[in-house]
């Protein structure tokens, strides 16, 4: 019933109609601007470099499939793929759990430490990665984690925490205190409350956080490039970087490499999207 009600409303003014048309126009504009680039990229990955240079926007006249196997082999993408999944997966999991546990403590357990700690996390949101790149690199060498997996994971986790703690704390604050107090009265420990009450309730914010984290980490290249030198530790975007930039000379392979880098994200997003919506619905009922 609620779905059709606004549509059937008799007092739909001209202004509202114009507004709706405008909205649809914006949405369609966005759609075109988003779908087109992706299709453009995929189409061009089937052109030879020379054909792309002559014909940037049309369909390939003589489609070639050679770019994919070549890019895959040259870029050693099988290995980079595994690395990317590892870095993104482990770091995201750690960021979500650590942010939420911290957020829970900040939001629901009273302590004098909360205010300064929380504020320092919020300042972290403001930081540009590029500004701490050199200090991070030097520290990484001094502590001996340079060129190791853990030496890449820890900075990744650290960089994701500020926004995670911020979103998590805001979210958990909205959970009624009564819920926690009654569990406390029943004798549950804080850790138990966190795992069995808070964590399940945090699914919406965890999903949002996970999506934000996964998308940014999957495409991250600056840090891995700086913190690893062994090829076997590098990630997909670093491999793709080898194919790109204004000095690169073969566009066909470059686009194939870019599609290879984008496709898993696209698949991940399209399949994950349903889950996030389910998560959001669940969150809406409980919150």
């Amino acid at each position, binding site marked *: 019933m*609620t779905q059709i*009600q606004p549509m059937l409303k008799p*007092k739909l003014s001209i202004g509202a109609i114009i507004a*709706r048309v405008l*909205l649809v126009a*914006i*949405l369609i504009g*966005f759609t075109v601007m*988003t*779908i087109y*680039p*992706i299709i*453009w990229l995929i189409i061009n990955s089937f052109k030879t470099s020379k054909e792309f240079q002559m014909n*940037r*926007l049309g369909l390939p006249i003589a489609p070639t499939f050679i770019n994919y196997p070549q890019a895959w082999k040259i870029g050693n993408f099988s290995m980079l793929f595994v690395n990317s999944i590892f870095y993104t997966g482990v770091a995201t999991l750690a960021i979500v759990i650590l942010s939420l*546990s*911290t957020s829970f*403590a900040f939001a629901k*357990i009273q*302590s004098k*430490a909360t205010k300064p700690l929380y504020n*320092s996390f919020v300042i*972290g*949101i*403001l*930081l*540009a*990665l590029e*500004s*701490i*790149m*050199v*200090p991070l690199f030097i*520290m990484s060498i001094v502590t001996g984690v340079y060129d190791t997996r853990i030496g890449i994971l*820890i900075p990744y*986790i*650290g*960089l994701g*925490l*500020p*926004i995670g703690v911020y979103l998590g704390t805001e979210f958990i604050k909205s959970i009624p205190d009564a819920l926690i*107090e009654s569990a*406390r009265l029943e004798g549950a*420990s*804080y850790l138990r409350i*966190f795992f069995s009450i808070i964590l399940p309730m945090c699914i*919406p*914010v965890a999903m*949002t956080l996970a999506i*934000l984290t996964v998308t940014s980490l999957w495409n991250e290249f600056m840090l891995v490039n700086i913190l690893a030198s062994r090829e076997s530790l590098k990630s997909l*975007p670093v491999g793709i970087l080898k194919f*790109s930039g204004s000095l690169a000379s073969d566009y066909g392979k*470059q686009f194939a490499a870019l599609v290879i*880098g984008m496709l898993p994200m696209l698949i991940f*997003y399209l399949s994950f*999207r349903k889950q996030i919506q389910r998560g*959001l619905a669940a*969150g*809406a009922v409980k*919150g």
Partner: protein
Amino acid sequence: MRQLTGTLERKQAYLLLVLPAVMIYFAVIAFPTIFSIVLSVSNYQGGAVFGEKANWSLVGFKHYLRMFKDQYFWISFKNNIWIMLMSLFIQIPLGFVLAYTIFRKLIVGREFFQTVIYMPTIISVIVVAILWQSIFSPYGPVTSFMRMFIPGWENKLVSHPQLAIVPVLFVMVWYYTGMYLIIFLANLQKIDQQVIESAQIDGANEWQMLKAIILPALSGVIVTTAILAISGSLRSFGLIWAMTAGNPARRTSVLALYMYDNAFKGAPNFPLANAISTFMVTVSFVFIVIAKKIEKRFGGKE
């Protein structure tokens, strides 16, 4: 509560929950940041930082002075401000309006649009940059399109010193609006449906409902997105780095790029680069404090 549990368990729990994140955070972000602030008032030019091989000393604020005297610093800063205004007054409202449209089921194909608008965010900046570069090229589709209306139109968008940033701003709207959409949508869905339904039954129109129920419920989120927008726009780097690298004549540069150029391009000047980043953090901090203040005043009135 207190009598029942004892402070010890509470303190332990707090510590356990907070410590891992705090440790990593301080190692990865807080310490390098402090380090970076120290470097900004030093004459460090690379090499050992600690130990007997270390060869640097503190020299005061001369790098800040140099920065403030450089016209390219101000051009970059101005561009950051443009990006910030654009995110606050175009991206956020647009993200909100679109989220609201989807939430209130004002259009068909909601799921489809929701999926599509967020999609750019998952594409790597490298792809985005190459793509839009081809589109805005003097020989690209924008030029062909304009020539359909104005024969012989010359694409001088980027060769105009004040307009060069416009294509970048445009791409940013496209690239980041989806993020705000997702955030708004997630929070809209937390609003009690019954309140909305009963308002409808009472005969409230769309606008009244928005003003009386939705916006007040979202005031916290609006501040959150504003903070994200402010900090995000002051940090913006990747897209511009890949799309224009600051050209022509630094007219599309931003502070982070200005800093990168000073740290990694030919003649590295780490103290200057760190002075720039310290400035960036300070400025966004000030802006965010202002945003919070505004929220307090605004929130008080509701």
